[in-house]
C-alpha cells in the first residue's frame, strides 16, 4: 500500500514533442484514480512512466515519499495489468500466477507459493483452470489470470492499462464490477487508464482528464460532471455529450439559435462583459414542457423548437434539434469535436425527453430547459465561467469519505463471510511485510501469517 505523487512530470520524445506535459497528481493510499482522455492524450505514457517502462524527462515521481525516477520497474514493487494481458504462453495458468513469486528467489518456499497461488486462483475463480495454458482460455479468464499475477505479490499499487478494452460488452460490465470490488477489498492504490467513459465514471474515486499531454481537471466523477472546469472536460464527460449552443447575452437573457432563454441573474453576472458565450446544456436538462411539474417549472424557461427526429429507448427518449450557427462559431465547434476524437460536430442539440412525451419529429413543440444547471463557457479560452469551486470541492470531498467507508466495509466483509480475499492490513497487522497476508476465510489473523512466512 502506498501513495504515489506525480510532481510536474514531463515526457518528451526524441523530436521534442511533449507526450506528457507538466502533470501533477497526488494519489492517496488506497485511492482509485482513472486516467482518461481521447487517444494520443498521453494517458498510457503517463502510466508507463509510473511503472518505469518509460523514462521520465523531467519532474519527480514519488512512491511513499521516495523518489523513484531512476529505479528499474522491478524495484518499484508495482503490479501492472496490460491491455492485451501479456500472459506467458508457454506457462500454465498456475505458473503464470506464480511467476512473480518465483522471480523473488528465496523469499517464498514452494508451499508458500502454492498457498498464495491457490488463494489468488480461488478469489478469481480460476481454480479449475490452473493446469491449462493461456491459449485455451476465454478472454475473461485470461484477463483474470493477468489480475491474479498482480494480486499474488502484494504490490504497493496496481496499474491497469485499458484492461477491459479487448472484452465484449457484457463481460466488460461484469469484470468492471469485479475490479471495483477487488480494489476495495484489497484497499490497494490503483491507477487505471481507459478511454471508456462508463469505466471512468463508475470505477474512479477521482478521474483525471488529459488532453494532449496536459491535465485538464482531476476530480470526483460527480464534480467532473456537474462542475467541469472547461469546455473540453464538459464535452468529454457524459454520454450523450453536453450540447454547446452559441449565444449572445443581453441582461439576463441568452439570445440563441433556439430562441431567447432567460437565465438566473447570478449566472449572467459571471459572464458579464463577454459578447458571445457558449452555453453548455446536458441533454437531461431539457424536458417536454407539458410534462414538467409545476413546482419545477419556475426553475427554468421554455422555448419552441422543431425536432428533426426522436429515438424512443423505453426509459426515455432522445430528440434532435438542428440549428445553424454562425460560421466563426461553427469553426470553434469543429475544433472542439476534433480534440475529442469525434468527427465534425454536427450543429445539433440532443434533448432527453420523458418516455411518455408525445413530441415527435417534424412538429413544433414547447420544450422546457432547467436553467439552474447550465454552464456558460468562454468561447476563446474554453474556461467555464459559471463553475462553482466550492460546490465542486464538496462533491470530491464526499467521494473521498465514501471511499474510506467502502474500503472499511469491503474489508470487514472479507472477515465475516469467510470467503473473500482479505488483505494483510485488514487484520490490523503491519501491512506488506510479507507477500502473503491473504487467507481464504480470513479467520486467521494476518499477523499469524507473518510468523509463518
Amino acid at each position: 500500500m502506498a501513495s504515489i505523487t506525480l510532481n510536474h512530470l514531463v515526457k518528451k520524445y526524441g523530436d521534442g514533442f511533449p507526450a506528457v506535459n507538466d502533470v501533477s497528481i497526488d494519489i492517496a493510499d488506497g485511492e482509485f484514480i482513472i486516467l482518461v482522455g481521447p487517444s494520443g492524450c498521453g494517458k498510457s505514457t503517463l502510466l508507463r512512466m509510473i511503472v518505469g517502462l518509460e523514462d521520465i524527462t523531467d519532474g519527480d515521481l514519488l512512491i511513499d515519499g521516495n523518489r523513484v525516477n531512476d529505479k528499474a520497474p522491478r524495484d518499484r514493487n508495482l503490479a501492472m495489468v496490460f491491455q492485451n494481458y501479456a500472459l506467458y504462453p508457454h506457462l500454465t495458468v498456475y505458473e503464470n500466477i506464480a511467476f512473480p513469486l518465483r522471480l523473488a528467489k528465496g523469499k517464498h518456499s514452494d508451499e508458500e507459493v502454492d498457498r498464495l497461488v491457490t488463494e489468488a486462483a480461488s478469489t478469481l475463480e480460476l481454480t479449475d483452470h490452473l493446469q491449462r495454458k493461456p491459449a485455451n482460455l476465454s478472454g475473461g479468464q485470461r484477463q483474470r489470470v493477468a489480475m491474479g499475477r498482480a494480486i499474488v505479490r502484494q504490490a504497493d499499487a496496481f496499474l491497469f492499462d485499458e484492461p477491459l478494452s479487448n472484452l465484449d460488452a457484457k463481460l466488460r460490465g461484469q469484470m468492471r464490477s469485479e475490479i471495483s470490488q477487488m480494489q476495495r477489498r484489497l484497499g490497494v492504490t490503483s491507477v487505471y487508464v481507459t478511454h471508456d467513459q462508463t469505466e471512468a465514471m463508475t470505477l474512479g474515486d477521482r478521474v483525471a482528464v488529459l488532453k494532449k499531454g496536459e491535465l485538464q481537471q482531476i476530480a470526483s466523477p460527480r464534480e467532473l460532471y456537474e462542475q467541469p472546469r472547461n469546455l473540453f472536460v464538459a464535452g468529454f464527460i457524459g454520454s450523450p455529450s453536453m450540447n454547446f449552443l452559441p449565444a449572445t447575452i443581453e441582461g439576463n437573457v441568452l439570445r440563441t439559435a433556439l430562441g431567447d432563454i432567460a437565465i438566473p441573474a447570478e449566472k449572467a453576472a459571471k459572464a458579464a462583459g463577454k459578447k458571445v458565450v457558449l452555453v453548455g446544456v446536458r441533454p437531461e436538462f431539457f424536458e417536454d414542457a407539458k410534462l414538467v411539474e409545476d413546482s419545477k417549472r419556475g426553475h427554468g424557461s421554455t422555448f419552441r423548437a422543431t425536432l428533426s427526429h426522436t429515438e424512443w429507448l423505453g426509459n426515455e427518449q432522445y430528440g434532435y434539434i438542428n440549428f445553424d450557427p454562425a460560421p466563426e462559431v461553427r469553426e470553434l465547434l469543429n475544433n472542439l469535436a476534433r480534440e475529442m476524437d469525434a468527427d465534425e460536430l454536427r450543429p445539433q442539440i440532443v434533448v432527453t425527453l420523458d418516455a411518455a412525451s408525445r413530441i415527435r419529429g417534424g412538429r413544433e413543440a414547447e420544450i422546457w430547459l432547467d436553467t439552474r444547471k447550465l454552464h456558460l463557457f468562454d468561447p476563446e479560452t474554453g474556461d467555464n465561467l459559471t463553475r462553482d469551486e466550492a460546490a465542486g470541492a464538496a462533491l470530491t470531498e464526499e467521494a473521498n469519505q465514501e471511499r474510506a467507508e467502502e474500503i472499511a466495509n469491503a474489508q470487514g466483509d472479507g472477515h465475516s463471510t469467510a470467503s473473500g480475499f482479505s488483505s494483510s492490513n485488514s487484520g490490523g497487522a503491519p501491512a506488506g511485510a510479507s507477500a502473503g497476508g491473504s487467507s481464504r476465510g480470513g479467520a486467521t489473523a494476518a499477523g499469524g501469517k507473518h510468523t509463518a512466512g
Partner: protein
Amino acid sequence: MTSTRSKVLWGIVSVLVAVYALFPVASILATSFKAPSDLTNQKFLPSPGQATTGNYEQILVGDAQGLFLTALRNSIGICLIATFIAVVLATLCAYAIARLDFPGKKLVLTTALAVSIFPVISIVTPLFNLWRSIGLYDTWPGLIIPYLSLTLPISIWTLAAFFRQIPWELEQAAQVDGATTWQAFRKAIVPLAAPGVFTTAIIAFFIAWNDFVYGISLTSTEAARPVPAALAFFTGASQFEEPTGAISAAAIIVTIPVVVLVLAFQRQIVSGLTQGAVKG
C-alpha cells in the same frame, strides 16, 4: 462435394511433387546397391540376384573406410560448431535488431544480406591464399569461419523476423513482475523463441553440411576434409572400375543425419506457440 474433390486434387499434386523431389534420392539408393559390373545395366533397379551391400561395406569397413569415416567426423564436427556459433551470435544480434533502436541497425541487416548474396566462388581463391599464409588452410577453423559467413546472415534474418512476432509486452510484464532484463529475456522470450531458434539451427546446419566449394578448396588432407569433398576422392577397387556405387552409398549415409535432425526436432518446429500470449 467440392471438399472431397479438392482433397483428391491436392493429394494428386502432393504425390507428383513428392515423386519429382524424391526420384533422385530413390535413384541413388537403388544405385548404391548395384555391384560395379551391374552399374551399366541401364535399369533403375539392380539386376535380379545381383543386389549387393558391397558398396556400404567398402566405405564403412573396407578400402575407403579411412577416407569416408574421417570425412564424416570432420563434417559433423565442423558443421555442429559452425551452427552453434552462428545460432548464438544470431540470437543476440536478432534480439537487438528486433527490440532496440540503435544507429546502424539497417546497416547490419543490409550487410548481412549483401554477404549472403555474394557469390561464394569469387571469394574462394583469395581466401585460399590468405588461409595458406596465416596457417588456417586445411584446419577445422579454416572451414568454420567461411561457413559462418554462409550461415550467419540467414540466421540473423530468420531470427529477427521471429523475434518481432513476440509481443514486447511479455518482456515488460516480466520486468514489472520483478525480472531483470536478462531474466525477462531468458524466462519470457527464449522459451517462446525456441521453435524459431531450432528452425534456424537446422537451416544453418544444412547449409554448412551441403557446402562443397569451400570444402574442396580449403582442405588438402583428411585433417579437415568434409564429406562432400571427400566423395570426389573415392576410387574404384581398380583403376578400371567406376566408384559410382561407393559414392552413392556415401551420399545415402550423409543424408541420414539430415533426416534424423528433422525428425528429432519436428516437435520443436511448431508454429503458433505464441498463441494465447495476447488477445487474438
